[in-house]
């Protein structure tokens, strides 16, 4: 039965009392004024020693006895069907133990992009596997291709897909199928919406509009996708580079996955990055497992860098047409949005979140997915948000400038988030918003400031259990089978258990990334910490209760008066009894107390359902070369209760760095003639390096947020939402001309400067029009 408790929620000087209903065995969230010894203290990662000494064994590093190597053959053509595959020569090559083809395994004869999997070989050495790939003879039926949204949208463009698949499909609002409402009803509704919102915009004091575009960004985790697979007595053991251990296992045991293992264990103790691209086993995961089965020995199949760049996921590009009506008092009246993006050969998942964060009045928004003959998109750290925020935040600055209002004040006017309202002022103060800078002059370099906001929704949810074990000799261990992809989940899981048991960090062992342990979530939607830590705390709390009952029973004390603090048994409100944790454990009759607890499925009420966040960027632009240097980014972030400031700050810095990299450098370059990605490597696909890294000033707000017993919200995704938008606004501020396309390369900067200077020489253009 749920029970009601009183809690305080809020932050800074904004606190209020709430009555919430918690699951009856749940523990009350920490309250302001509670004496906490670890939570809120910067705590080094529990796996840091292994990582700095090279002893952390990633999937890529595994070498079970007898292991051989798998490699994948990929189609070189932009769009083709596989007619036949001759593996006879390859089979006879030295060291070759197994060959599989994708038409046979996946029942798919199409190879719709250059990089599509065609066959896979396992051989004793990598060189032998590569030699065998070269000996496979494939006959293709080569078709015309489209590799850009622009090409695929053209009248009479070649068909990307097969059968009835069209290149461009409306994805939001969805095309209806079946009996529930017809498409003509929907078309009529959209037409009415367009007319109504069009009138609202028309009737506003000021109208601004622009077309914005963003590029395809690959995830580029340093450890590539794939796994090392070993079949032992019919059981599949997979060391997988995965951000969803249980999802990976389900794919390999399911009927639809192709492998259909009766029993499967996934091991992902260390994962070299994921960023949203490692939820699925993927074709490489299935091929690795099946090659190992066929060869009868363990197989190492992790992608090479080219395969990773071509086939392992990316953030879709976008073209966003925005039109906004604003009144002179600063209130946005209405916004019209049309967007297009390519998720590869499918149509779903290429939307841009350009209608969130602010109140943008009446909205008329339609999104289209565009098929292209390119590698498929995967969820990429805040999917849809950085590209959407880029367009929205340029519009916010354009509108503010048009009505002559300060850019921050204009945002505040259209924003009700209680936390963000405070964050704006912190960001303004730390970036020195009102300072005078050399802007837009004849000087060789000019500088500018830009601001933008974050939004996220991530208090976690059901789907995790934790096992806490306290042994008679005082050892403590906590286990959850989810993964830590570099976020610090493992460390905070240990911290909440140590806090609950009144122990030091080094007294709690943590185990993670093993599907034989209790169920855990995928690292997606920034929900891992909010899902895993309440389960861990709950299990520790109940393990403690069991231990206190043993102590009370032996000593004739009252268990309800006992607690653990500072490695000793305390009497609540009085202080230490003098009994150490170890001597309390020694009173056990059994060898250990083991408690397995599931996280409550539902969250209760809290201070805020969303994370906010504001970022401000200070940039310098060289007007002679077009080079942009981001000097500083102030990132004000909140994520409910900050459990570990050290790793939280790292998450924010990481988001900012990937955001700057997206703003200035990264882009997939497609050869439109040959239909192939040109920069499937790290020389030509440029990610931000140490010389380009701005100073990042992170400010974390600690919010007693309620909702769960650890009150934490995720922080992986929110910090990347605003960065590119803030940088682009800063560049526009510096130059005095709007930037419409990412990445902001020197060429685009020089073109913008040329247009700006040309515009100065002709009579003033209509304001708000794109130059």
């Amino acid at each position, binding site marked *: 039965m749920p029970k009601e408790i009183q809690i305080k929620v809020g932050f800074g000087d904004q606190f209020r009392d709430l009555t919430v209903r918690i699951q009856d065995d749940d523990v009350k969230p920490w309250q302001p004024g509670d004496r906490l010894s670890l939570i809120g203290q910067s705590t*080094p990662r529990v796996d840091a020693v292994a990582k700095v000494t*090279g002893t952390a064994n990633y999937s890529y590093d595994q070498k079970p006895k007898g292991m051989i190597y798998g490699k994948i053959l990929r189609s070189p053509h932009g769009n083709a069907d596989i007619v036949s595959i001759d593996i006879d020569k390859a089979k006879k090559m030295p060291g070759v133990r197994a060959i599989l083809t994708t038409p046979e395994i996946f029942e798919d004869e199409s190879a719709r992009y250059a990089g599509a999997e065609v066959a896979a070989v396992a051989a004793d050495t990598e060189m032998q596997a590569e030699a065998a790939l070269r000996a496979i003879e494939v006959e293709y039926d080569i078709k015309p291709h489209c590799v850009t949204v622009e090409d695929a949208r053209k009248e009479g463009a070649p068909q990307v897909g097969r059968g009835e698949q069209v290149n461009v499909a409306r994805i939001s609002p969805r095309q209806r199928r079946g009996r529930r409402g017809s498409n003509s009803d929907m078309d009529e509704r959209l037409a009415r919406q367009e007319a109504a919102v069009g009138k609202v915009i028309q009737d506003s004091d000021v109208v601004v509009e622009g077309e914005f575009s963003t590029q395809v960004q690959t995830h580029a985790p340093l450890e590539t996708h794939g796994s090392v697979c070993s079949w032992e007595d019919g059981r599949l053991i997979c060391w997988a580079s995965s951000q969803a251990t249980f999802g990976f296992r389900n794919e390999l045991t399911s009927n639809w996955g192709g492998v259909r293992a009766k029993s499967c264990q996934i091991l992902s103790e260390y994962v*070299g990055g994921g960023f949203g691209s490692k939820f699925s086993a993927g074709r490489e995961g299935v091929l690795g497992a099946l090659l190992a089965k066929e060869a009868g020995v363990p197989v190492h199949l992790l992608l090479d860098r080219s395969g990773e760049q071509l086939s392992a996921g990316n953030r879709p590009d976008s073209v966003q047409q925005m039109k906004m009506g604003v009144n002179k008092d600063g209130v946005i009246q209405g916004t019209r949005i049309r967007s297009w993006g390519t998720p590869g050969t499918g149509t779903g998942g290429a939307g841009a979140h350009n209608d969130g964060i602010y109140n943008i009045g009446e909205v008329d928004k339609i999104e289209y997915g565009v098929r292209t003959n390119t590698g498929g998109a995967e969820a990429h750290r805040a999917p849809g948000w950085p590209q959407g925020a880029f367009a929205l935040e340029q519009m916010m600055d354009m509108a503010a400038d048009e009505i002559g209002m300060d850019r921050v004040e204009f945002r505040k006017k259209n924003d009700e988030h209680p936390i963000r309202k405070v964050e704006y002022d912190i960001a303004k103060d730390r970036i020195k918003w009102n300072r005078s800078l050399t802007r837009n002059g004849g000087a060789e370099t000019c500088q500018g400031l830009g601001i933008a906001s974050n939004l996220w929704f991530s208090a976690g949810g059901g789907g995790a259990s934790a096992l806490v074990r306290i042994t008679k000799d005082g050892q403590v261990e906590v286990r959850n089978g989810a993964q830590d992809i570099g976020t610090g989940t493992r460390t905070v899981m240990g911290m909440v258990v140590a806090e609950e048991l009144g122990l030091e960090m080094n007294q709690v062992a943590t185990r993670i990334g093993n599907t034989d342990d209790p169920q855990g979530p995928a690292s997606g939607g920034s929900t891992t910490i909010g899902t895993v830590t309440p389960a861990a705390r709950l299990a520790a709390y109940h393990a403690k209760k069991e231990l206190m009952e043993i102590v009370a029973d032996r000593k004739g004390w009252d268990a309800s008066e006992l607690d653990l603090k500072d490695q000793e048994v305390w009497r609540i409100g009085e202080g230490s009894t003098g009994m150490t944790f170890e001597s309390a454990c020694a009173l056990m009759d059994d060898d250990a107390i083991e408690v397995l607890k599931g996280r409550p499925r539902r969250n209760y009420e809290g201070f805020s359902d969303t994370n906010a966040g504001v970022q401000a960027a200070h940039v310098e632009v060289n007007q002679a070369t077009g080079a942009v240097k981001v000097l500083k980014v102030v990132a004000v972030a909140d994520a409910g209760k900050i459990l570990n400031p050290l790793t939280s700050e790292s998450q924010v*810095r*990481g988001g*900012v760095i990937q955001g700057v990299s997206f703003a200035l450098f990264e882009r997939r370059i497609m050869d439109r003639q040959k239909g192939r990605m040109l920069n499937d*490597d790290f020389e030509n696909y440029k990610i931000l390096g140490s010389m380009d890294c701005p*100073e990042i000033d992170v400010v974390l707000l600690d919010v007693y947020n309620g909702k769960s017993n650890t009150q934490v919200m995720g922080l992986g995704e929110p910090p990347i939402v605003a960065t590119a938008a803030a940088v682009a606004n800063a560049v526009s501020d510096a130059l005095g001309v709007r930037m419409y396309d990412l990445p902001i390369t020197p060429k685009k900067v020089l073109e913008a400067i040329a247009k700006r200077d040309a515009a100065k020489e002709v009579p003033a253009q209509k304001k708000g029009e794109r130059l």
Partner: protein
Amino acid sequence: MVSKNKNPEKDGVSRRSFLQGAGAAAAAAGVARIPETVIAGQNGVATPEVLGPEAESILLKVNGADKKASAPPSTTLLDFLRNDVGVTGPKRVCDRGSCGACTVLLDGQVVDSCSMLAIDAVGKEITTVEGIGTPDNLSRLQKAFIEKDALQCGFCTPGMVVSCTALLEENPKPSRNQIREGLSGNLCRCGTYQNIIEAVEHVSRKGG
């Protein structure tokens, strides 16, 4: 020792040996080795010596210990370390010298172990991250990495630790810009650069 390699080069990786490696690896063919003396034009006649493609016994000195295995002469130093003698600290990420995750020291010099041949490292002292410090005996830089949270997923970390160690060896009091330059061959995707710079500065302030 590679029995036929009588001519180990003196100064790290030359462009020539790199090109030999790249070509040989692609074709899995033999490696033609032209003695230095011929290149220098000091000797009139000499025939290029061909190694492989069969496996050779290769003996390397890694972190002070002898590591021996049989591998084709076209094997890169990185693959020899990882696949043949089980030293997996250096990571394979780009496999063509653009990311630094495979960084090791060769007689104290920073090299990308993916972009040179194992046989070109014969007779030299190879130091990987495992040789910088161990879990029971961390170097001061490794401790600073932990304290400053200069790692997230950790996959670039072995290369970063090796590069920063070499940087501090060469210049115990680097400026912030010199640290950035020293790290410019190493990519991190999670975004730990600022923390790494802070870790190096922390060690540098306390004295090299």
